């Protein structure tokens, strides 16, 4: 049955683009974690190259607002989403039935950046400093890193006199860096280049990669709600929710594999979809240059861990276990997540592995 579906899908993709227009596609809303940019290149490539259509899916990629992708998926405003693992597991702890189905990035790209001139050499030096963090669930890697070195912040609503002053700001490093914070949050694939654009070339910066300090909290993953997975007939498509999920994951991974191999082409696919968000900053404002940098950095996060063992999209159980242990250690998780928090069967069905 599945083979037949795949076969017909492949046929449609390969030879008969006119036929697929007639077969009814299943509408799917995939909530991205951010505005369109190369961070999601794989999904945009899958869209542009017709990989989704070949699987019988009509995918709408939703840009983010201020709320978490978890909330849009848990409430059914979107069917699937991408987010970070901390976000997923804390949501799960709060009773939201969301399920991890595929791991896109195998390595954390989160960093804290300081000026070399400010003489912060190691995380223990963070004490008494001002650290810029993002709100809305994006502050966890910073908290985990700080907690590992026994530092507390004002982000914790139970701590009265924190040892590090957390400064939240709306994502743009230029608002706070370098005069209002000593350390600023930055993703390797985005803000690091934005900071460089502000006039601080990389040799003037000290970059603390969270993953170098054992805080390898996994980022971009695909997830859905338990309700979708349990659905016997997803939106009247005649297919189960699990089958739809497997198709989505399969097409997405195909898109990702293509994107990291053909980065220039992937960037060209992404660029027309950007509003103003693909631009870098300052002297490096050019959107194409910034997205090219981003694509290269994102590819590094994709081509790591399980992907190198030929298991792209697979959540390595050892990595997962260490993530859970880490989150429990810093107190963000109070107990092990329920077994249902991760569903490997979707990835297995998608990749036949």
């Amino acid at each position, binding site marked *: 049955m599945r083979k037949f579906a795949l076969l017909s899908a492949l046929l449609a993709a390969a030879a008969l683009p006119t036929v697929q227009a007639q077969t009814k596609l299943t509408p799917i809303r995939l909530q991205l974690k951010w505005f369109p940019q190369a961070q999601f290149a794989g999904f945009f490539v899958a869209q542009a190259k017709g990989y989704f259509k070949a699987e019988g899916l009509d995918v709408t990629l939703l840009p983010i607002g201020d709320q*978490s992708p978890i909330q849009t998926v848990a409430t059914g405003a979107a069917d699937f989403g991408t987010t970070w693992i901390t976000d997923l597991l804390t949501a799960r702890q709060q*009773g939201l*039935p969301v399920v991890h189905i595929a791991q896109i990035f195998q390595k954390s790209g989160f960093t804290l950046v300081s000026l070399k001139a400010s003489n912060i050499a190691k995380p223990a030096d963070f004490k008494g400093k001002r650290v810029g963090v993002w709100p809305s669930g994006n*502050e966890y890697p910073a908290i985990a890193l700080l907690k590992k070195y026994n530092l507390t912040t004002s*982000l914790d609503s139970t701590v*009265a006199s924190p040892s590090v*002053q*957390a400064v*939240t700001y709306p994502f743009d490093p230029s608002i706070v860096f370098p005069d*209002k914070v000593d350390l600023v949050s930055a993703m390797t694939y985005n803000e690091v280049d934005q900071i460089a654009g502000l006039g601080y070339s990389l040799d003037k910066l000290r970059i603390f990669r969270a993953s170098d300090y054992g805080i390898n909290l996994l980022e971009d993953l695909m997830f859905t709600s338990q309700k979708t997975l349990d659905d016997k007939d997803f939106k009247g498509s005649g297919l189960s929710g699990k089958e739809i999920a497997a198709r989505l994951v399969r097409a997405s991974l195909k898109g990702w594999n293509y994107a990291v191999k053909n980065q220039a082409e992937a960037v060209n696919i992404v660029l027309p979809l950007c509003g103003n968000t693909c631009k870098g900053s300052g002297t490096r404002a050019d959107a194409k240059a910034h997205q090219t940098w981003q694509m290269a950095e994102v590819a590094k996060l994709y081509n790591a861990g399980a992907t190198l063992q030929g298991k792209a999209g697979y959540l390595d159980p050892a990595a997962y276990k260490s993530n859970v242990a880490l989150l429990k250690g810093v107190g963000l998780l109070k107990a092990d997540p329920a077994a249902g928090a991760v569903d490997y069967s979707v990835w297995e069905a998608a990749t036949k592995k």
Partner: protein
Amino acid sequence: MSLERPVPRLAGAWGALGLSGLGLAGLSLLLARQEAPAQLGPAQPGLWLVGITALLLLGAVGIRQSAQGEGHPARTVPAAATLILLVLAAEAALRAYAVPTGLIPTPSKVLEALWAARTVLWRDALTTFVYEALLGFVIGTLLGLGLALLSVRLRFLERGLLPYAALLSSVPIVALAPVVIKAVGLGVASKTIIVAVTVLFPVLINAVRGLHSAQSMHLDLMHSYAASAAQTFRDVRWPSALPFVFTALRVAAPLSLINAIVAEFFGTEGRGLGFRIQIEVGKFGLDVVWAAIVVASVLGISFYLVISLIERRILPGRR
């Protein structure tokens, strides 16, 4: 005017209210016993809702009866009962359908969070209310009054400035906040400025209108008494302007707190109710979010009532 019969039937009202309240509280307690698995769909569709609605209707009958007459209870009981019954009903409904805290927390969870995070919320409230809303309110009011006095003295200024004030008072604060925060910084000052700007224009406009509202007869009278400009101002213009100023202040008071919170969404140094709401939404700690909203509402209402009280003290003649 009103449709109700004027005969008070308080006993019946109390009975219905009590029954409804006890019923809803009982339901909540009953539901607390059974640990329902977290799920979004209704467990027994409709059934719980019917029960809760029935109890609420009973409560509505009680509220209607308790609102008869003009006594003290008839004025206060209906409002209090409405709030209590709605909160209880929300508690029961949220428990019945096992709505996860990450979506909508039950009122009891909000109370717990209010207690658990009391020190932090207190500090946040201090930052947002005292340093941002109150300070901004005072600065905006003083500036507004000052500009109004200047404008009334210098007609040229009034004609040049007031049209802009009227225009600028309809600028949405969300468009203003990112720019001001970027220019002034993430600290408390940027929020104080934003609040002051939003208070300034309505006060200015109303104060000018008020200063002009002195009746020409009174002014003529002062003139005929050969009163000095200062005397005229103190005895006629200023008193007639005050009601207008207070109207603006009463509107501005709760708004100043709301605007401080909204402005905090665009960046803080890690303190304030808006910061707390934003950071806890990201953690799905919606119980703390609602607790912060409760604190903000109580502060907003109190602020409004205090301004009203001052108004009544200063303007005893008006009701």
